[in-house]
């Protein structure tokens, strides 16, 4: 794919998002003209750009969409739910067309083309003449009301001043026919003949035309339309067309709404209709002519002044255009401060920074061994700088989660319609930042959770009312930072998870034994089990067999975790916890036997000495709290004798505390995470590896699975004797 096309695809997708966002707002606020203009602009930009890259199937489709939006913008058709829905479907189709283009296929497949044709047919219903006349008459009626109310009927007219050239009649043209034709555009309110150029009778040439006219015309036509009437005599007549007062305000408004392109003054005036192209050409010509004889160094007279002098455009309009120009320049300057960078360049930088961190650690180590004070000092300054560089480099990869969240506005709207439920989406923490690669991968699991909440969680409106809840359901998406991780919550105020049903299902599926007693939380957690689904009917939204276990696996793939809390009758909360970054972490280095392990520093709360008397148990008393712990030595089956003094690193994860028993504490350490190769994938409790300053390899502990694994093993240990007992009794 060439560069131009890839730029177009990126720009096109951005504009498409803007369009979608605008369309969603459209239903809420149908009178928001800024919004409608925004939607139009986005569509217009896509169409224009697709023309430039010569992608005709997008161009022609967008042309139809643009036509409808144009009518909407001009108030010729009204906003309706049906229209908004149609336009949103057009957005979807455009997305498909973009995919076609991105895949490098010359033409969309037949079924895509057919879908496009069907949409175009629907669009045509909104542009056909039948609705045009209906819409047009409505606008006209409104205009009349406005006019009679404002009392501006008489003054609100075009002023046309024309002096015909002497050769008019000899060219077979009659001033009268022009005037008559003018009258067909609207109503001529007043006309005055100007015979000033008429010479004395003796000098008069009967075949020459000496007449001029001042005309007041009331019409809905544009300036260009009026000028076109005089096309045939434009070359040898003087023509001034001044817009009515109401038009002035309209021009000023149009200028403010112009797209934010770098446009020249004349272009802007022509674009909004205040100036016609030929008036502009004339103005530019006289700007050059004035300049040539004078010294070339002097700046030319501003075009705006010339145009006002020529009386082709009012000063107010020029002023508005000039200030708009300044505005756009300012905005461009801000945009120029943003740079687009290819993602793989960033990844490369992060890799290099990672190497730098490792090399820095090694230099630090050598300096300390050498015992030279100055060397130690300079390497410590160096490592502080490396740390700063690391933070800035990671910051480059951070993006706000907002974009991912806003996509759900559309999902919630569509799904709610499909389900016949009324559901609001509330978003908070959209500005929370996290690593780009995480953002990219979190979309699918989130989609599953949100759809699940809407489909299974939120009850139909009538049921909600009967339960004393507001009729409209509510789904929240929240994001916030919490001790070195980012937390994303999907909250609904629906029915909550039905424990009885879940338990029954789990027993049916053989996931639990009928006589097993489970706590409420344990029952709820059954939803994460593979192949579990309680939906009695498989809808096309959720319950497609792709269960919650897939969601959990995806999130775990990002080194995250997910939990569910639910109160029956009042709602469910899914909490996803993700690491801030995937590449580099602050680690806490510990030693067991001769091997070194790294614990992510964010999770470490404190370190204590393991007293000899708790050595045989699996928990200790931490200031009155029970703290279960894991012995790394046992868990990883490290050979060798336990040292006389062992240490416990107290870690916290998702509100749970646990201890990890190690031999030595080696201190803080900046760590670049190197993922383990796929042969080691099945290893539980190890999240990756890293290289120490000395060149040795250290394993990074996956605290979460470590703690969970320990808890599960304990459970098993406790359950087994109980079951043995029951079998022995039978």
């Amino acid at each position: 794919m060439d560069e131009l096309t890839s730029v177009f695809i990126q720009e096109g997708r951005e504009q498409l998002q803007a369009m979608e966002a605008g369309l969603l707002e459209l239903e809420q606020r149908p009178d928001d003209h800024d919004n409608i203009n925004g939607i139009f602009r986005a569509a217009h930009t896509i169409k224009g750009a697709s023309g430039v890259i010569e992608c005709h199937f997008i161009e022609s489709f967008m042309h139809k969409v643009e036509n409808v939006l144009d009518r909407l913008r001009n108030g010729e058709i009204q906003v309706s739910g049906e229209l908004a829905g149609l336009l949103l479907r057009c957005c979807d189709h455009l997305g498909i067309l973009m995919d076609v283009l991105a895949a490098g296929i010359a033409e969309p497949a037949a079924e895509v083309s057919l879908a496009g044709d069907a949409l175009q047919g629907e669009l045509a219903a909104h542009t056909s003449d039948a609705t045009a006349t209906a819409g047009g008459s409505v606008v006209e009626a409104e205009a009349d009301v406005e006019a009679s109310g404002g009392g501006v009927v008489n003054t609100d007219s075009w002023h046309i001043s024309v002096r015909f050239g002497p050769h008019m009649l000899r060219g077979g043209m009659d001033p009268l026919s022009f005037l008559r034709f003018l009258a067909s555009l609207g109503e001529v309110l007043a006309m005055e003949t100007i015979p000033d150029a008429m010479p004395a009778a003796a000098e008069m040439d009967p075949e020459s035309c000496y007449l001029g006219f001042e005309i007041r015309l009331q019409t809905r036509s544009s300036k260009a339309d009026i000028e076109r009437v005089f096309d045939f005599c434009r070359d040898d007549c003087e023509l001034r067309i001044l817009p009515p007062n109401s038009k002035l305000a309209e021009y000023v408004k149009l200028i403010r709404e112009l797209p934010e392109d770098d446009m020249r003054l004349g272009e802007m005036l022509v674009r909004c209709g205040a100036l016609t192209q030929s008036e502009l050409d004339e103005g530019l010509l006289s700007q050059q002519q004035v300049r040539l004889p004078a010294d070339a160094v002097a700046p030319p007279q501003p075009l705006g002044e010339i145009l006002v002098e020529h009386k082709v455009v009012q000063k107010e309009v020029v002023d508005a255009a000039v200030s708009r120009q300044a505005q756009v320049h300012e905005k461009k300057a801000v945009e120029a401060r943003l740079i687009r960078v290819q993602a793989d360049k960033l990844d490369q930088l992060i890799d290099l920074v990672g190497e730098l961190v490792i090399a820095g650690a090694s230099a630090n180590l050598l300096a300390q061994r050498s015992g030279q004070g100055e060397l130690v000092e300079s390497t410590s300054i160096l490592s502080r700088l490396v740390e700063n560089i690391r933070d800035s480099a990671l910051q480059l990869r951070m993006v706000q989660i907002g974009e991912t969240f806003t996509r759900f506005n559309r999902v919630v709207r569509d799904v709610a319609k499909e389900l016949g439920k009324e559901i609001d989406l509330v978003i908070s923490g959209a500005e929370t930042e996290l690593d780009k690669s995480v953002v990219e991968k979190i979309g699918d699991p989130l989609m599953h959770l949100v759809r699940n909440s809407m489909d299974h969680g939120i009850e139909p409106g009538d049921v909600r009312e009967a339960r004393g809840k507001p009729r409209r359901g509510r789904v929240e998406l929240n994001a916030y930072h919490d001790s070195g991780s980012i937390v994303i919550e999907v909250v609904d105020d629906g029915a909550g998870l039905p424990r009885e049903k879940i338990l029954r299902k789990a027993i049916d599926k053989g996931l639990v034994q009928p006589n097993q007693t489970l706590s409420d939380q344990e029952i709820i957690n059954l939803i994460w089990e593979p192949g579990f689904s309680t939906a009695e009917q498989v809808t096309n939204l959720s319950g497609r067999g792709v269960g919650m276990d897939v969601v959990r696996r995806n999130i775990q793939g990002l080194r995250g975790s997910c939990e569910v809390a639910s109160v029956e009758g009042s709602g469910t909360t899914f909490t996803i916890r993700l690491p801030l970054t995937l590449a580099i972490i602050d680690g806490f280095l510990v030693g067991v036997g001769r091997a070194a392990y790294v614990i992510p520093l964010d999770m470490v709360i404190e370190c204590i000495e393991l007293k000899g008397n708790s050595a045989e148990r699996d928990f200790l008393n931490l200031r009155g709290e029970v703290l279960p712990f894991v012995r790394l030595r046992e868990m990883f089956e490290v050979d060798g004798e336990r040292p006389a003094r062992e240490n416990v690193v107290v870690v916290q994860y998702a509100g749970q505390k646990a201890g990890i028993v190690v031999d030595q504490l080696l201190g803080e350490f900046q760590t670049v995470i190197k993922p383990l190769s796929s042969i080691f994938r099945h290893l539980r409790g190890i999240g990756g590896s890293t290289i120490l300053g000395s060149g040795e390899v250290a394993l990074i502990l996956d605290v979460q699975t470590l703690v969970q694994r320990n808890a599960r093993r304990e459970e098993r240990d406790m359950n087994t004797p109980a079951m043995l007992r029951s079998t022995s009794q039978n």
Partner: protein
Amino acid sequence: MKTIFLVDDSATILLSISNILAKAGYATEKAASGEEAMRKFQAGVKADLLITDLNMPGMNGIELIKQVRKLPAYKFMPILFLTTESQQSRKLEAKAAGASGWIVKPATADELLNTIKLVLR
């Protein structure tokens, strides 16, 4: 009834324009070449408007306009010529020869009739 004189070497164009004009209530006179048109004008044919093509074998449109303008009876008759958008220089040449205006090909029936309405007395 106004009479419009059409000159074009293409029979298709002559027919299509005269059909449009007939529907709009105009009478038409036709000629397939500049020479034929000149003969009819010299014979004093009734015409309220002349519409001519510019590119014709033999006497071309510009020459025809110049000749017609020399005849006193047609000195002030409106004359339109058929042109394509790109022929800007031809436009000026034809104007200088005495044409009143032009119709850009291909024109819709509305454009054609509007332009005729504009120049017809």
